[in-house]
């Protein structure tokens, strides 16, 4: 069907859209008239029908436009195709809930309420099975080797005995520790000093901007900083011969599976650059929530600015800081994209658990080891979420 009438597509498109609009306008005039003529009892059903009809018309027009123009190479046809996909998704969604709710409403009273509740929840619960079932399957996968033979705990033994794997594991831990601490401290510093400063909004926007940039984009951006070529900013500032920052897997000459390489540290800087904005904004807002009289009381009691900040303000916003740190550590432990781009898929000893899960599961075709890495990540994240949920509960009760 695609591109059926490629010739003269634009004219046809205009005709179809015109027809659709005309139909809608006619309906807008006709429907109320019909509605008034109907007995009052039937009006609700009629209005539902009319709405469904209007939705179907819009959808039909976009579908027809797509049949005529979709798959074409012109930019109009690309836009039409995109529109068609997007409306399709939304129509399907609306239809899903509409149908579920209608079905639920067919049941007699004592059950109707129950089925309506189910209609509200069902799509979400179904999607969540997409997490639960794979997570369980994944655990069983982790006991098989690359030839799908039973391997017992072999994959886990490999993780803790092979140097390359220890490196992956320790890298991930270092990522979690260094990036989380650095971006939280950055957030606290900027939020503190920028608070009520002139130009606060501009400064914070500058810090926040990288949050919107993808890791892939960040890889390109930072190449102009780290590159050993003439256009590498860092090499042009540092004296001496150009360095290959992203290929040095030792830490100032020391190579150990338990230490991160220098290249890993340089990639971490990029992620700190991305993450700091989030910490800044959240902590800054928390700072503005600290009651003025609390700080004033501390000052009257003889505290300096510094003391007031560290002894009074920071403890007050402690739970916010814990939340920020938790969010950051969860994001960082799953770090993947940037390793793919800047670490060249984890070469030069830059791999992390999430990267390894992908590398083993797909390019290396060792699904068992990939699954075992996934389980390891799950075990790493579990205590963090546990601590955070306790923190949140304490915060609620403290109110």
């Amino acid at each position, binding site marked *: 069907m695609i591109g059926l009438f490629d010739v003269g597509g634009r004219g046809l498109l205009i005709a179809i859209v015109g027809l659709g609009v005309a139909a809608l306008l006619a309906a807008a005039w006709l429907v109320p008239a019909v509605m008034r003529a109907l007995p009052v009892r039937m009006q609700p059903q009629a209005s539902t029908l009319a709405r469904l009809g209007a939705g179907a018309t819009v959808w039909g027009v976009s579908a027809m436009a797509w049949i005529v123009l979709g798959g074409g190479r012109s930019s109009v046809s690309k836009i039409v195709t995109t529109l068609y996909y997007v409306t399709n998704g939304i129509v399907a969604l609306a239809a899903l809930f509409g149908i579920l709710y209608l079905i639920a409403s067919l049941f007699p009273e004592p059950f109707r309420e129950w089925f309506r509740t189910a209609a509200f929840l069902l*799509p979400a619960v179904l999607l969540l099975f997409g997490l639960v079932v794979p997570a369980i399957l994944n655990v069983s996968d982790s006991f098989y080797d690359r030839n799908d033979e039973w391997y017992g705990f072999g994959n886990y033994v490999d993780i803790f005995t092979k140097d390359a794997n220890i490196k992956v594991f320790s890298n991930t831990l270092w990522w979690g520790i260094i990036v989380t601490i650095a971006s939280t401290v950055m957030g606290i510093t900027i939020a503190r000093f*920028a*608070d009520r400063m002139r130009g606060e909004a501009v400064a914070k926007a500058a810090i926040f901007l990288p949050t919107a940039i993808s890791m892939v984009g960040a890889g390109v951006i930072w190449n*102009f900083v780290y590159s050993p070529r003439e256009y590498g900013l860092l090499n042009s500032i540092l004296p001496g011969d150009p360095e290959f920052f992203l290929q040095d897997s030792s830490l100032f000459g020391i190579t150990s599976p338990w230490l991160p390489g220098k290249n890993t540290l340089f990639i971490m800087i990029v992620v700190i650059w991305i993450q700091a904005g989030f910490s800044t904004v959240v902590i800054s807002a928390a700072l503005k929530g600290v009651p003025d009289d609390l700080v004033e009381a501390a000052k009257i009691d003889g505290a300096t*600015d510094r003391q007031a900040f560290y002894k009074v303000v920071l403890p007050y916003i402690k739970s916010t800081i814990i939340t920020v740190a938790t969010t950051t550590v969860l994001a960082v432990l799953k770090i993947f994209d940037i390793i793919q781009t800047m670490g060249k898929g984890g070469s030069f000893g830059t791999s992390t658990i999430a990267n390894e*899960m992908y590398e083993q599961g797909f390019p290396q075709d060792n699904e068992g080891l990939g699954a075992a890495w996934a389980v390891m990540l*799950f075990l790493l994240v579990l205590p963090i979420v546990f601590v955070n949920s306790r923190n949140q509960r304490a915060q609620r009760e403290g109110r």
Partner: protein
Amino acid sequence: MADKTPMGTRVAGATTGPVGRVIVWFLAALWTVPTLGLFISSFRPEDDIKTDGWWNWFKNPARVTWDNYSGVLDNKVNGLQFSEFFWNSVRIAIPSAIIPIVIAAFAAYALSWMHFRGRDWLFVVIVGLMVVPLQMTLIPLLQFFGGDYFPDALEGVTTIWIAHAIFGMPLAIFLLRNFIAGLPGEIIEAARVDGASHLTIFTRLVLPLSVPAIASLGIFQFLWVWNDLLVAKVFGGGATNQPMTFAMVDMVGNKGNEWQLLTAGAFVMMVVPLIVFLSLQRYFVRGLLAGSVKG
């Protein structure tokens, strides 16, 4: 929430002495330099980019060109024009942001205001699922989508939508439930006394009142999907369904030395998130704060 605190002249405000101000502006400048470098590079002629640093552009600011941008849009990746990947990204990102949020909003309403047995347990389980790393589910999900139970016609963009919806679900339900459960109960009750059904309360009251939370979550989800590489790479199948991130990585791999294309490409990729982000920043920040800041 924080913005309820009256902004008075505060003693703590005096902490921003000259040292503090220098620190802030220094960091702000430092944070801007890499992006600025990309921005400038993307307008420089190919030879300039490859032979000297972008900071040297200031010496000769007249040397600018649009060629990089037209070059990258015409550039072919896996036989497809770069601009196709832009539309793919749009096609993936908009429904992938809307679908999970709508579904999560319905669930969050049920978890907040509908009474059924096991409600709190269900919520705890959903929150617990935030812990499952998405990488853990890739292989089994891929097998499911590729298997006999799943209609082949839906493979491609739809699979990516569903995958993103799955991965976004726990966080979306968690944040939206926190917000929706926090709406004043008397308003919901008033609507019930007025004769509204759950669907009416949801569409006429709860959705309009949840706009800040929904908008911020939508932006968050949109940015995440737009910037995503992994999910699309695993679930998208061939290059015809891939987003711009895929094209960029491909270009970095195959055309690693054509920096004039990569700079422009990276900037094209950034434009949409930046627009979304800057125009809706207020919502975004407010949404981030919901539930995380003691108020």
